[in-house]
């Protein structure tokens, strides 16, 4: 307990949110200490981990990131290994097998880089459609933070407002859009014939030029599980910059308790190192940003006399309202070649299907053709057929060209029963594993039955599908949201409009957990925008003394 760990701003988690806050605080002249549960490794090691995997494991995005015993995360090698850390229950339990890595740099190591914004309507579900919740502020309040987030990450996107989502922007994207590959162009043309608009995705990936020292995308089509060259933003690229600005990063430091003191302010966090030795870290402001599962877990583990439900949890909302975009996928085979795989693994989506007055009855969704190269899938399938020689080559080529995955990602509204609690099961350090109850709700199931599956089938027909397999269960999108939900009323929400805990003046919980609703698009850009907004509040709070 004699450690001298202390800083103006103590940031738990080195993912995109923690790094955004850390860099902002350093730029404002504050001292920053970052605590990362997992190890810190070089990019090339992960690249080689991935390339050394057998083809059957290459689609398991966590396989290239073996967890340390003290920082477990989901491992999907087998069903048994997948059940090891995340404890899941409820009718859609398996749809909450959320992938994230407890490594320095966090889950952006293996994100797709997609940077959709919420729409103004996505932020007013309650008042417009009578479902879910309204945000504490409107789109216009968030817009400047979205723009700052796009410039911080380096987002490429279309300059034509007709191709932007939503087309309400104060500044152009910092870079122009990446060109479509043949598969995406074809999907766009097919969608247009049935009145749907497949938009080029805004993405944190460099198009044609370097950005913040990161090189231009050269189409390795390897965004999952790691961009081998750093053309896609990931928080790992910011770690050396944070250190150059004076930030201190401690890896293998597993925070397990938040300590409160007078006036219920947070006065320290405690972490175990890899030798199970506990350390105490003091500071002026504390930021817990270790994703939508680990953050509520730490808060719940930190209950004390004054905070008997856990830290920041007088509302009993910590760990509730867990969200994601429940996903339905279709594997299709077509008569004609589509040739996915040119460019990033995702680069476009149909977005306007997420909006509409139907939202008072069922949810909306986005539709996407996955642009990952099919050679691995095609190769494995062709080998299974026992082919050899030229016949094998021809079949690999056919299956690589003429197959595709289509995806529906449904919006899920905040529901209190979708809840993270502490499991009685303990991990290597003796800390509770997270337990999550998950039910995507009839609001989503109605959408699938009456709205999204019919659209999917139209798209499949348009593509000339000869054979298809549509999953009859939901899967996860890895967009973990809602567990520290934002709101104006301290009795029904965890954090205020600046992601500050209602219960603790100097505790900030920015990121996916704070999101009031999730929309149909990927959550990261909104998380970073919230981190920007929280950063402003942190800096002004500390500057004011």
């Amino acid at each position, binding site marked *: 307990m004699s450690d001298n760990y202390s800083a103006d701003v103590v940031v738990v988690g080195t993912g995109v949110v923690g790094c955004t806050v850390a860099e902002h605080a350093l730029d404002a002249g504050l001292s920053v200490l970052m605590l990362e549960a997992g190890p810190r490794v070089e*990019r090339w090691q992960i690249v*080689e981990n991935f390339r050394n995997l057998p083809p059957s494991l290459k689609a398991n995005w966590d396989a290239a990131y073996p967890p340390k015993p003290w920082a477990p995360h989901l491992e999907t090698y087998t069903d048994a290994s997948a059940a090891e850390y995340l404890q899941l229950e409820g009718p859609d339990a398996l749809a909450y097998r959320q992938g994230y890595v407890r490594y320095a740099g966090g889950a952006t190591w293996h994100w797709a880089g997609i940077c959709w914004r919420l729409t103004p309507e996505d932020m007013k579900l309650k008042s417009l459609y009578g479902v879910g919740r309204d945000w504490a502020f409107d789109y216009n309040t968030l817009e400047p933070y979205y723009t700052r987030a796009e410039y911080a990450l380096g987002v490429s996107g279309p300059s034509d407002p007709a191709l932007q989502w939503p087309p309400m922007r104060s500044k152009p994207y910092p870079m122009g859009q990446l060109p479509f590959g043949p598969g995406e162009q074809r999907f766009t043309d097919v969608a247009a014939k049935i009145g749907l608009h497949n938009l080029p995705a805004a993405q944190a990936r460099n198009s044609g030029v370097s950005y913040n020292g990161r090189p231009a995308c050269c189409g390795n089509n390897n965004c999952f599980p790691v961009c081998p060259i750093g053309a896609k933003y990931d928080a790992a690229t910011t770690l050396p910059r944070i250190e150059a600005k004076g930030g201190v990063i401690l890896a293998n430091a597993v925070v397990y308790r938040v300590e409160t003191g007078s006036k219920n302010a947070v006065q320290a966090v405690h972490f175990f190192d890899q030798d199970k030795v506990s350390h105490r870290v003091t500071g002026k402001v504390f930021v817990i940003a270790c994703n939508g599962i680990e953050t509520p877990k730490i808060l719940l583990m930190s209950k004390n006399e004054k905070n008997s439900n856990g830290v920041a949890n007088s509302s009993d909302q910590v760990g509730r309202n867990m969200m994601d975009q429940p996903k339905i996928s279709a594997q299709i085979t077509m008569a004609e070649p589509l040739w996915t795989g040119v460019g990033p693994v995702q680069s476009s989506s149909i977005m306007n299907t997420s909006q509409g007055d139907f939202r008072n009855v069922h949810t909306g969704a986005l539709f996407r053709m996955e642009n990952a190269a099919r050679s691995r899938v095609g190769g494995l399938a062709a080998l299974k057929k026992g082919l050899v020689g030229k016949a094998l080559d021809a079949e690999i080529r056919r299956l690589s060209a003429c197959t595709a995955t289509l995806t529906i990602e449904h919006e899920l509204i905040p529901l209190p029963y979708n809840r993270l609690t502490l499991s009685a099961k303990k991990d290597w350090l003796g800390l509770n594993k997270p337990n999550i109850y998950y039910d995507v709700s009839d609001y989503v199931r109605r959408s699938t039955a009456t709205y999204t599956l019919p659209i999917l089938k139209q798209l499949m027909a348009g593509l000339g599908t000869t054979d298809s397999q549509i999953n009859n269960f939901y899967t996860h999108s890895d967009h973990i949201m809602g567990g520290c939900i934002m709101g104006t009323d301290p009795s029904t929400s965890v954090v205020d409009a600046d992601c500050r805990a209602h219960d603790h003046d100097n505790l900030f919980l920015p990121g996916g957990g704070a999101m009031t609703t999730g929309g149909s698009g990927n959550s990261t850009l909104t998380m970073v925008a919230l981190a920007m907004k929280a950063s402003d509040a942190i800096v002004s709070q500390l500057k004011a003394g």
Partner: protein
Amino acid sequence: MTLRTRCLAIAFSLLILSGIPAVCHAGDANGIDTASVQRGAYIATASDCTACHTAQGGLPFAGGMAISSPVGNIYSSNITPSVSAGIGAYTEAEFARAIRKGIRKDGANLYPAMPYTSYRTLSDDDVSDLYAYFMHGVAPVDLKPQQTSLPFPMNIRLSMKVWNLLFLDSGTFAADPSHTADWNRGAYLVAGAAHCSTCHTPRGFLMQELADRGFTGAQVGAWYAPNITSDPLSGIGTWNQAGLVQYLQTGSLAGNARAAGSMGEAVEHSFRYLSAADINAIATYIHAIPPVRDPGDAASRFSYGQPSSAVVTLRGQNGVRSDDDSAPSGAELFQGNCASCHGAFGQGSKDGYYPSLFHNSATGLANPNNLIAVILNGVDRTSAIGQAYMPGFGGHPSDMNQLSDAEIAALSNYVLSQFGRSGIVVSSNDVAQERLGGPSSPLILLARVGMGLAVFVVLLCAILFSFWYRSRQNTGRLKIS
């Protein structure tokens, strides 16, 4: 003083150039010769003044850029027309004296990081235009840059008077009627504005250019400016005129060489803005430099290597690399750090954006410093054909991977044996030295070890050397009247 005399931001010059009509319109009434200002802007571009006098992220020509030299960092001065911080109080004669003789307004000597030994050949008209540009085409900046503070005895600027006496020729450029006008224009530009010899001519013990070995290659900070004589093995004798012009304009000649370091900056900030006639004149002159061969060269540096890969030796061996703390092999480092752009076989990309690692001067030189320097520092060069960018791997905050000296040595040796000139071996110490900015001069050792004694040694050597040097000056050098 090894010179990193080429750098940043001609874009600024262009901006200023495009803004000149407005400046001049106002200026006409004040008697400013706008045509002269415009010509001066071009000469400033050709001379790449901005390379050293505009710091990264700094205001145009406000100085403060650290120029690494074997005897320590030299900080460039503010050459905006600010009276308090720049050269606003210089008369044209004082300006000309600084450009050509390396003497400040106050009479103190400049270090030859300022290539006045080259600029002295600029014509009176060009110097006059340059003066007009810096007085009327550049915005004054009242910021004083960091002062240069070299270790003893180099901190005694007076010592430069001795140096100048020994090594600064007098006289200006005189055309050689036995050559074409094109060749003569090239000779004028190469000797003066472009100051090619500043980097490409080796330097002696006292950092003076060794004229008898002109253009045969020299170390420039971390980078090696190779032999550019017309020798087909050691130089660029295998390049044709169009190839050299393309290289100067874009920094890229596929299957041969790419410009990085100081040369990349020269392309980005200077050569790409020169007129086609001037670039062709430079190429004409460079092509006519008599061949000088290094006896150690058995083949052209552009000819070494072939596509190959050791990837099959890796796969299926070590499933998880990130848990392995043992020293990685060069093959592993290559696959994880390089192959995603340069290809598993080092073949580069079909469009030539990513160079092949064989048939590449960085892997074909006997001196491996450019290979080490490019791995450490990367490439960032913009020309008319766009940006060529490679991140460094040497521990800069923006690098995508941070490799140790031992790892870069292992990687370099893999690349050299797989794609380049075999038999060249890089050690961790070589990388450490390159990481610090290149070899340092023995002068500094003398200064630090011997102090007073060293001064005597240096001066004695200087005097002895001067006799030898004067007696050796020969026809290999550009004729100067």
